């Protein structure tokens, strides 16, 4: 089969690989129909995630058709069209039994601090991902869901991570009626986080970024006010001015480990790898939220430490909430929101690339060329 393969930082190509096989009785093999590149894939692409091995196939946002099932699979049949949460989870460990599907303890031998994720290095379990023609899906009775007839494929693929993570990020903010919510990052996660903040009763939603196309999308798709941090000498001061010197009630950090906005931090962390990425957005969140406020972190960070201003968080009495999204837990309610038009994930899609052009897709998405917000990948077998 054809599959994207990692060749080292900033380098990847499409190669012939063996089609995955059933390795556990509850496995399924899914023929991928549509995949996406996630912003967090860029951390792998840039060499920021430890134990990213040469030959690894990325991709944790995908939908497809069940091509084969293991002997114990009861809920799926060959031919079913399924959407697959980015989390690999067993459904039965201490954590899964309590709804923490992203923290499953039975699927990732390489680390206890993170669960299993498709195509996201050996630090998350060593599973090849869905930017390929076929993918192995463990625990087929637990993770995948048949795509509802009414759902658009592009909404379905975005619900496997980006959209679900945005919605989850707003929930972590514990928003109450009238709150001022600041969303850092107008990428796919930030856009849905902004839309979701309204659903939870926000009185103001302000999105901060520095890319004009994304800020425009935040205004049109998410009805948000916007701030371009390049236009302000100190965006934290602007956040204070915007909120009558109070600070935001809630800040949702939807940027993660490659935040820009501070040249030295970005170069030291994201480029020279002197720390586990760039903590600029996280520190803006800590300094921009009001005392006693809440920070929701859904931007992705790896296991290497960062220079986070923890003292400010302590002294301000902040509540910090964060996790990888337990995607399937979000879906029943999110399906209603998508069907009712309250959440519109596919509005963020800007680019569609054939799998064979995936090197270009990564570069365009990484540098944000051509106004790229969300690129989708079309495998050749689809």
């Amino acid at each position: 089969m054809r599959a994207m393969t990692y060749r080292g930082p900033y380098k990847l190509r499409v190669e012939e690989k063996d089609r995955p096989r059933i390795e556990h009785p509850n496995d399924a093999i899914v023929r991928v129909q549509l995949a996406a590149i996630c912003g967090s894939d860029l951390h792998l692409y840039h060499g920021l995630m430890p134990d990213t091995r040469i030959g690894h196939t990325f991709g944790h946002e995908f939908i497809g058709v069940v091509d084969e099932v293991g002997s114990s699979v009861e809920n799926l049949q060959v031919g079913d069209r399924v959407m697959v949460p980015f989390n690999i989870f067993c459904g039965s460990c201490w954590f899964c039994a309590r709804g923490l599907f992203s923290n499953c303890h039975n699927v990732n031998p390489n680390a206890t601090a993170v669960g299993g994720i498709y195509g996201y290095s050996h630090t998350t379990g060593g599973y090849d991902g869905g930017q390929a023609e076929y993918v192995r899906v463990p625990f087929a009775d637990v993770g995948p869901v048949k795509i509802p007839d009414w759902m658009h494929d592009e909404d379905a693929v975005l619900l496997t991570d980006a959209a679900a993570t945005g919605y989850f990020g707003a929930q972590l903010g514990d928003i109450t009626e009238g709150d001022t919510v600041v969303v850092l990052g107008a990428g796919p996660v930030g856009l849905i986080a902004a839309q979701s903040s309204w659903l939870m009763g926000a009185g103001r939603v302000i999105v901060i970024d520095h890319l004009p196309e994304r800020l425009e999308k935040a205004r049109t798709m998410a009805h948000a006010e916007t701030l371009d941090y390049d236009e302000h000498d100190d965006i934290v001061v602007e956040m204070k001015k915007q909120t009558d010197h109070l600070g935001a009630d809630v800040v949702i950090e939807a940027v993660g480990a490659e935040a820009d906005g501070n040249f030295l931090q970005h170069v030291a962390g994201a480029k020279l790898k002197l720390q586990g990425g760039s903590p600029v957005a996280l520190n803006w969140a800590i300094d921009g939220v009001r005392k006693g406020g809440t920070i929701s972190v859904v931007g992705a960070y790896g296991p290497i430490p960062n220079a986070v201003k923890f003292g400010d968080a302590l002294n301000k009495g902040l509540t910090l909430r964060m996790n990888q999204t337990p995607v399937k837990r979000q879906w029943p309610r999110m399906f209603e929101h998508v069907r009712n038009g309250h959440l519109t994930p596919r509005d963020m899609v800007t680019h569609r690339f054939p799998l064979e052009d995936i090197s270009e897709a990564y570069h365009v998405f990484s540098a944000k060329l051509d106004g790229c917000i969300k690129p989708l990948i079309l495998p050749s077998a689809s």
Partner: protein
Amino acid sequence: MTDPSSGTARSAGTSSADDIPIAYVPDRPQMRETPEQLRARIPGWGVDLDPADRPSSPKLQYSPDTTGAHWRFPDRQPGADGRERSIEHAFVTPVFGTAQPLHGLSGAIRALAYRRFSEARLAHWLLLVVGDRVDAWGAHLRSFASLHPDNPGTETGVLSELTASGTARSGRSDRRHQLLDPLIVGGPWVAGAGAAFLGVRKVVRALRG
């Protein structure tokens, strides 16, 4: 006050009656728009206002019978013997990825990281990063002895600079450090080529006596 429908945020000004910013007085901040106005302007405003409607609230919801799992502990996937694992785990988990097993020098470095250091130790992660770089350079060198050598021109996707408005600096995420990226990607290749050239030259000179 800002008109939210106008887009770009403007400074809020003061909200208290005596012109003192709200942070310095006990008043509650006033909503700029009433719930009715927001409901009219924003699709679905407030439909998840009640935390009971939010799927991740409360955080812990004990419901093991609803996950689809029909086991208390999953069948164990064959092949766990010898597979690397975090020493914070009691055993290799019952299900695991089998992509790219450990091999060669990079595999030895990674195996040491897993065997010797827990996830709590920075040495664990730094050794894994060293393993990654050794793996990458080993793969590059091996590729030159294959029919499919690495090609930074195609594998970096840099050719899209010519087709996807790459020359426009506006809108790029990397415009503040645009020159640094090629240096980081291409630098090691240039250094490697330089070292190879110097090495060959030294050998040639030695052979010439």
